[in-house]
């Protein structure tokens, strides 16, 4: 092969740079990561234990009742929830289900707490919008496995790094939809609010956020679904739950177990999706 002019340019050591940056980060902030890790672990294990304490029959009934009222006193979703959750219990996956629910709920909550304010900031500041948009693109298109590496570096293995990776993956829709929702508020209503002498926060809380609510909720629904889809990947770094069942089935080539765990995940996904959609209408 002939030599090309490009060969004279030495390789830029990007991967080395990232690695040493990560080393520096883990080393310098070790105390911070450690305390997050132990606090997170405490909260999440506590939540899972609490959920497991609830007798499965009672838990199923509560979900069914919520589904019944949320869907306007219709039986469809409630019936599906009863049959579906009973099936999961019947297959002996109840504890895994509770672990997965904890993972998804905590990841979603963190995403919302971070995502909504960032979305508002982007809607208000052109500058923030320009900077954050490509970061969101990066978060969504970077293969999810890549997040596992820093997650392990910071937090070791277990539920906490699983949540960390899930948040990175699931955060963008909430940010994007919040930004969109606020930008979509009709100009005239913003002007009306300002013309009466509203302060910035009065405008935000009394007009913009209420009018952007349904769009923001659509974003949150997407965030919950993405957090669920990270469950299997997160199990690769030791996050317990239905995902780890799928993973071990894969490693041992057990089609049956894999199918049952996968189906349980699908059931959970459908129940959570419909329930969040209906609750936010």
């Amino acid at each position, binding site marked *: 092969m002939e030599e090309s002019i490009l060969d004279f340019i030495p390789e830029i050591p990007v991967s080395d740079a990232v690695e040493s940056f990560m080393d520096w980060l883990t080393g310098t902030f070790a105390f911070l990561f450690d305390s997050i890790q132990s606090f997170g672990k405490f909260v999440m294990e506590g939540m899972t234990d609490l959920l497991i304490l609830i007798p499965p029959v009672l838990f199923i009934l509560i979900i069914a009742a919520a589904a019944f009222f949320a869907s306007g006193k219709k039986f469809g979703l409630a019936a599906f929830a009863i049959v579906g959750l009973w099936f999961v219990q019947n297959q002996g996956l109840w504890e895994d289900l509770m672990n997965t629910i904890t993972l998804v709920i905590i990841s979603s909550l963190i995403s919302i707490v971070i995502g909504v304010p960032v979305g508002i900031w982007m809607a208000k500041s052109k500058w923030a919008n320009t900077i954050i948009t490509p970061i969101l693109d990066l978060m969504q298109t970077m293969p999810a496995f890549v997040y596992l590496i820093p997650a392990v570096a910071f937090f070791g293995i277990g539920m906490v790094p699983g949540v960390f990776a899930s948040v990175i993956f699931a955060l963008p829709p909430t940010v994007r939809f919040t930004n969109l929702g606020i930008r979509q508020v009709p100009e005239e*209503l913003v002007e009306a609010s*300002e013309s009466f*002498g509203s302060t910035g926060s009065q405008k935000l809380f009394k007009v913009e956020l209420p009018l952007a609510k349904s769009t923001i909720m659509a974003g949150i629904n997407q965030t919950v679904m993405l957090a669920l889809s990270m469950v299997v990947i997160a199990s690769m770094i030791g996050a317990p739950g239905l995902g780890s069942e799928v993973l071990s089935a894969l490693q041992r080539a057990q089609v049956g177990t894999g199918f049952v765990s996968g189906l349980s995940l699908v059931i959970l996904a459908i129940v959570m999706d419909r329930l969040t959609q209906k609750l936010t209408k």
Partner: protein
Amino acid sequence: MSKITVENLVKVFGKKKNQALQMVKEDKTKAEILKATGATVGVNDVSFSVEQGEIFVIMGLSGSGKSTLVRMLNRLIEPTEGSIFIDGENISKMDKKDLRKVRREKLSMVFQNFGLFPHRTILENTEYGLEIQGYSKEDRQQKAEIALENAGLIAFKDQYPNQLSGGMQQRVGLARALANDPEILLMDEAFSALDPLIRRDMQDELLNMQETMNKTLVFITHDLNEALRIGDRIAIMKDGELVQLGTGEEILTNPANEYVEKFVEDVDRAKVIRAENIMTRPTYIEIDHDGPHVALQLMKKEGLSSMVVLDDDRNLQGYVTDKDIVKAVQRKEKSVKDILRKDLPTVDPDTLVSELFDVIQDSSTPVGVVRDGKLLGIIVRSLVISALAKDSEVHE
């Protein structure tokens, strides 16, 4: 002191603002500035003042800069240059806090598409202005309910805006603006989205309301008929410039340039011109001095078939017809008192030409224009018709 004074107000959108501003000062037009700099001049060096209690109409087609202009009055749009004084205070130089105070206490705005918050009930919409000022729930509800009561909307207070018709929504918009008891109302095409009959009702309501409330109104419209109907004075804008400022009468009778003239062409003049604008000086005889011979002489000379009769103080006594006069001359009578007819139709000088039609249609004689019994002038049928022709000369 004027309530609102606007001095050399300029708004430039886009880049190269300074260059565009320089060209504004050199009296260049919007098109020239756009070509040279790429910047759009929204409002081009506009000055005017509005008096307390006045209804000041800013009229122009879309793109004329009228909405930009009104939004600079409460600084929803920041002026590029120039000053706005409200009660002598320079709005354009205020910091955010003072500006909020002015917006809360002095200015309210009514919007073309009503600007009602869809997630709030009618009552909650109406109390918005008071709510953000920190009134207690009781106080603000009470005030909002009074405003809704006045607008005849109290029955709908717990409904949401989308449950109301357009006309009712705009009544809410108006009630919401008035709930703060502002001194100045800015109305941006407030009635333009309503259908014509409702629009008329709303104009009437606004005028009635203005009689008791005496606010200062700045009203934006693209409809000249609306401008003429409600405006005390009208400012006509084109390409960001103020091309004429005056009463409706002045604009109709004396358009400043071709642009205004074209605008005015479409106006239904019948709804604007009044009896006193088209009446002519009457040929008359005095009842105590002039007899049938004088009357006959004058009527022959002027080619009249009837003539009005006044007393010394120009009080209308009646009229005489040519046939009666000829008979009286033949009978050698000395006075017209015996042949005087009293059934001359009369109108007030403020009567609109449109209303004159009915009076003059059924009358074989001219119509007298009378104030306090005194004859000011007369109107014959041909005058009404020529007044409606656009190129007619209008008598002041």
